[in-house]
């Protein structure tokens, strides 16, 4: 054993062990990543510790900007809204995507490609386009209210985006619409990789469709669910364009979200330090949630 290693050049490296030269290979990418991501992020962290209007000399703020995140209701609310929106941006798309995938993979549907394309379409559209389209659908005389009135539910019609109680769910539904297609396509691809034998065995054991779903499909889709959750959580938390286009955080401040608050404070009210603190907090939140998801759902890789 020892002799063998020695003849291999006297290096104490097991086969497959990464070599130091590997770092050279990732260097170009790392440099780009550092220049355009790590360095700006470092700057953001640094700015979050100052009071700065973007023009005159900044003054040290210590942890003021971060303390405000917890004490200022105007800053706490956006985070609460963002977490609530995750139900619409993440939980619902994953749930609906699972249902659709389970149904579509069981039954052979005619024109499957067509349905898949239609459901996936929102992912292809720029979110600005999505926002403009939904703004007109949700308008007081928009498509949604027209349909409600046509079927005799006129009493439910309301100015969705201008309603204090309904604006946030209304914006959330747009997120559900965008995210569902992505989840479904991911799950369909995943379901195809579940061995048929498992389904056959389940059926032999007398499992119905529901039992089959929970015992075979759901566990088999674990990695895809982790990916879908991660993608939708990130998309939901950094959601800016939809809010900017549809409500600008209104009515009142009922739909303000952290990403919008970053823009608003940095560019509109000259509170660069506070904006940076919100941005850093948002980054941390996204990081924590995605790590939690991959640990919980995907399971720790050995």
């Amino acid at each position, binding site marked *: 054993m020892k002799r063998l290693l020695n003849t291999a050049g006297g290096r*104490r490296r097991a086969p497959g062990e990464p070599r130091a030269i590997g770092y050279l290979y990732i260097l170009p990418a790392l440099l780009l990543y550092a220049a355009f991501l790590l360095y700006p992020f*470092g*700057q953001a*962290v*640094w*700015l979050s*510790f*100052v009071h*700065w*209007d*973007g*023009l*005159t*000399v*900044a003054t040290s703020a210590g942890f003021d900007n971060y303390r405000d995140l917890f004490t200022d209701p105007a800053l706490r609310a956006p985070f609460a809204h963002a977490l609530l929106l995750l139900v619409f941006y993440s939980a619902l798309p994953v749930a609906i995507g699972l249902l659709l995938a389970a149904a579509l993979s069981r039954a052979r549907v005619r024109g499957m490609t067509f349905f898949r394309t239609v459901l996936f379409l929102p992912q292809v559209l720029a979110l600005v386009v999505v926002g403009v389209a939904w*703004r007109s659908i*949700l*308008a*007081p005389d928009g498509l949604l209210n027209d349909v409600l009135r046509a079927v005799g539910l006129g009493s439910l019609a*309301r*100015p*969705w*985006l*201008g*309603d*204090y109680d309904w604006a946030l769910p209304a914006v959330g539904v747009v997120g559900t619409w965008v995210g569902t297609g992505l989840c479904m396509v991911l799950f369909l691809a995943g379901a195809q990789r579940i061995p048929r034998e498992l389904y056959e065995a389940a059926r032999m054991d007398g499992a119905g469709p529901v039992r089959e779903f929970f015992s075979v499909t759901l566990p088999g889709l674990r990695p895809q669910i982790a990916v879908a959750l991660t993608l939708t959580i990130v998309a939901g938390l950094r959601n800016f364009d939809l809010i900017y286009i549809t*409500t*600008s955080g*209104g*009515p*009142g*401040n009922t739909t303000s979200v952290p990403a919008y608050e970053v823009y*608003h404070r940095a*560019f*509109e*009210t*000259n509170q660069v330090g506070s904006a940076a603190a919100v941005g850093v907090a948002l980054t941390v939140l996204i990081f924590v949630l995605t790590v939690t998801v991959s640990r919980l759902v995907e399971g720790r890789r050995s």
Partner: protein
Amino acid sequence: MGRPRTGSRGIRRRAVPALLAAGLALLATACVPGTDGSMAYGPGGGPATAVPDPAKAGKVTLTVWDQEIRGGTNGELEQLNKEFHRKYPNVTIKRVARSFNDLKTTLKLAVSGNNPPDVIQANQGYPDMVSFVRAGLLAPLDDYAGIYAWNTRYPNTLLNLNRVSADGTDFGTGRLYGISQTGEYIGLYYNKDVLAKAGVQPPRTWGEFTESLARLKDRGQQPIQFGNLDKYPAIHTFGVLQDQLAGAEARDTVLGRGPGFDTAATKDAAATLADWTKRGYLPKGANGLGYDDAAKKFSSGDGGYLLTGTWQLADLKKAMGDKLGMMTPPPASAGAAPVTTGGQGLAWSITSRSKHPEVAAAYLDFITDEHAADVMTAHGVLPAVPGAAAERVKPDTVDGQMIAGWKRLSAADGLVPYLDYSTPTFFDTITAGLQGVISGKTSPEAFAATLQKDYGAFMRKQRERHAAATPSPAEPR
């Protein structure tokens, strides 16, 4: 054998955060961002004394950043730029035109950068113009105002809105940091057909106006078209209501010397706004309707009135033709002096580090003088100081009505600045508050209290700044 390896990897792993921390520490010790305002006078040198002659300035490229991208103003500015170049062939104008929002988000970086534009359009108020002045990024124009007689060209009300105190604290007083090309005010547009069908004459007094609202409602028409999804339109509607009750008071408050917002006028105006919504004078669900959508509805015949700015005139006229009428919000008694929210277009300013401040000043004069006013009128734009061409516009056309209204407002000193100038955060405060009032969530009293809280806090901060700027003699140093 395996041990040392894991050990070394362990060290390397710990080294990464350490390196990151070291990098951050390096960043933190680097210089603090921002400028200290010490460059108020640029390389252009000291104060000007004689009328500058751009022809003698040699080969000059003047970089101009503006937001005049809409039809009329874009056309008028392009024509004026061309004429300026023809007059002074040695001066090339490099124009960078962006939408208002795009300009607002990029201007700060451009002006504070190493190679700022020579001429910029700065938005009046604390967040933009006052901030720029405090950072020493804009050149004071008082000398040029004397040389070019801008002081007499413009009414004081308008000039004051482009003034900032020398220490960069107060808005509406002090040195002149810009001049504006265009005028604008919130007017009452009306659809002649809709009014006639309901048997309503264009109102001459505020009383006639409010009576006609009830009548239009009875006849099944939408009295006032209004959309507030974009948040800011309600500032204009509320402003007009408040101006009817206490215009001068509101103007003083915006400029930091009035009674504030916890006043009867504020509460009554908010109560009227809520009342109009409840009665259906304003459309139900206005908070969910976009500003442009409301204008579109009005121009397609849905709505008797529309309360909005003169900037909408060109688009409305295109869609409605002769059906469109326009006036200042009617005064309390027929023929009395009108009062409304309004002001002027964004200020044209010279950056303090411009290499050619004299050429820039000549350019500013050129795009705002009497000839420029006529070019603006030809393009359907309301000049801040109407010229000869404005006289020739037929008074019974909607353009003629707009110009006549502007002249009466200027003569009567009837312009009240936009309320969101009041404090750096007032736009957020008042727009959120007004959406609450319109939805019935916020009572007029609570609304007034919210405004006053923001205003009072800012006034206290201003007083502290003043106190810090002029140390009392008793203090050491």
